[in-house]
């Protein structure tokens, strides 16, 4: 609670200071370029891009977006932008907790300071393809290939105030596919709902709970039975036991045996259904 208060104070003072700088510069007729350069040298690439794309919203707009995006996403689950919007408008508290957990672990601290991104420019998929079958790298490549998904499809964060929390949200979006891989879940509705449950219990994001509950409502009879009998209990158990998934620096573990990673994170895979 104290760290929370300290952090929010730091964030708000930083904001006030930057606003003061803008106002003072325009009054003193200092060319904007000079001010920009001084400030820019202290800002990392992610924060710079984030500041350009950011949209300032008031509390009322935040509430409106949260309600509207949840209704929208319910009516049309293909609206990924609405699910993303819901996450951004409701996720502040949970993201702060994720951030604190990351700062409490060494691997997490590395992620926070280096701010790695996962997309086709930063990850060499061709290299992962030729790795041994038991490695995380190969399994990730296989997952993307089998399910016909790309790491480039993640939307940018726009409706958040704090660049650090925005990075945590971005990281959450970008590692989602890796979480699928390490849990052994496909991208069909059943797999997505199961992963959402694990993520919900692991990260605390309200949007994950929403996705899990309302996504499950859309399951058809056959999948619904499987969900109730096997997937749901499995997901809840893993969600409770698994170590914080956001603390994992996946990019440094491509060569690692995926079974070892699963053991380390206390993940128990769901056995193939016909064996159950």
């Amino acid at each position, binding site marked *: 609670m104290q760290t*929370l208060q300290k952090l*929010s104070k730091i964030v708000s003072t930083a904001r006030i200071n930057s*606003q003061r700088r*803008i*106002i003072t510069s*325009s009054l003193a007729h200092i060319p*904007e370029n000079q001010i920009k350069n001084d400030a820019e040298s202290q800002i990392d690439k992610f924060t710079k891009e984030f500041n350009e794309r950011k*949209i*300032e*919203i*008031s*509390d*009322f*707009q*935040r*509430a*409106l*977006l949260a309600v*509207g*995006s949840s209704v*929208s996403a319910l009516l049309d689950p293909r*609206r990924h*932008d*609405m699910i993303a*919007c819901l996450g951004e408008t409701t996720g*502040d*508290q949970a993201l*702060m907790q994720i951030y604190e957990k990351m700062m409490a672990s060494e691997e997490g601290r590395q992620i926070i300071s280096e701010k790695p991104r996962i997309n086709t420019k930063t990850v060499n998929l061709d290299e992962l393809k030729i790795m041994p079958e038991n490695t995380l790298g190969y399994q990730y490549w296989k997952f993307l290939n089998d399910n016909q998904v790309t790491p480039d499809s993640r939307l940018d964060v*726009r409706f958040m105030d704090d660049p650090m929390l925005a990075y945590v949200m971005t990281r959450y979006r970008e590692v989602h596919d890796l979480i699928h891989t390490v849990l052994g879940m496909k991208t069909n509705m059943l797999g997505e709902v199961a992963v959402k449950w694990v993520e919900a219990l692991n990260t605390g994001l309200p949007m994950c709970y929403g996705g899990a509950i309302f996504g499950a409502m859309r399951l058809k009879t056959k999948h619904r039975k499987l969900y109730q009998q096997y997937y749901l209990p499995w997901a809840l158990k893993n969600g409770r036991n698994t170590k914080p998934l956001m603390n994992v620096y996946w990019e440094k573990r491509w060569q690692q045996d995926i079974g070892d990673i699963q053991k380390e994170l206390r993940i128990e895979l769901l056995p193939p259904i016909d064996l159950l």
Partner: protein
Amino acid sequence: MFRKLNLFKIYRTFNKRQLSLSIRCCNNFTEESKDFTHFGFETVKTDEKTEKVHQVFKDVAEKYDLMNDAMSMGIHRLWKDIFLERLYPTLGTKLLDVAGGTGDIAFRYINYINNLNKSNQDAYSKKSSVTILDINQHMLNVGMERAEKLGHISNETLDVEWVCGNAEELPLESDQFTAYTIAFGIRNVTHIDKALREAYRVLKPGGRFMCLEFSHIENNETLQWLYDQYSFQVIPPMGQILANQWQPYQYLVESIRKFPKKLEFKSMIEEAGFKQVTYENLTLGICAIHSGFKL
């Protein structure tokens, strides 16, 4: 850490944005003001404005009609109905509908003329026409699709034409049309005076210029506050949810505020040569119809 709905905060945030943006604008007064113009509350190079507006309408074209209904709660249909009534088309009218985009005004005109033709079968019927012009091909495409679905196409008594062109430089001959309409379009034109002069040029003597546009509420502070809150707090999020677009709707509500007031616009119309220029308020001043004649 729960955020409370705080009306004061909303008001303050709104004003904060205006303050920070007006400071940005101040910095540009050192340059020649004719090289810069407004794009909503932003200041941009005049050469860039047309392109930026083009992008806005490219982004909104698909959901344009849905958003109009949502934002105005269907009232925009009434505004356009009244606009047509004021125009009072007769048989033989040759209408040029500028910034006609998705066709709302043109379709109302076509219905009007077709009805007149029906009830005047014995009378000598003159051929009417409507030319729908828009700078943005995406908007025209949506309009042409709608026209096909609704059956608004040329027949023996009515010509319907779709043209892509710039209101500031109409690709049309002078003295051609008996009526010129522009509904919710002139606000987006970079050089409004040019568009007005072009309107004067292509109209026949006796022709009528009519403009339906968002305007300013007069002498009512409470209503002004409510209107501002709705515009700035509700419309952009609505755009995000319904059309996955925030910026175009932010531009929309800002550009409404930058448009000249009714009297000023009236003088601009008179400067272009029009006579008998009048204006009428709709919905307490939220919209206005300006009208002038080429005499």
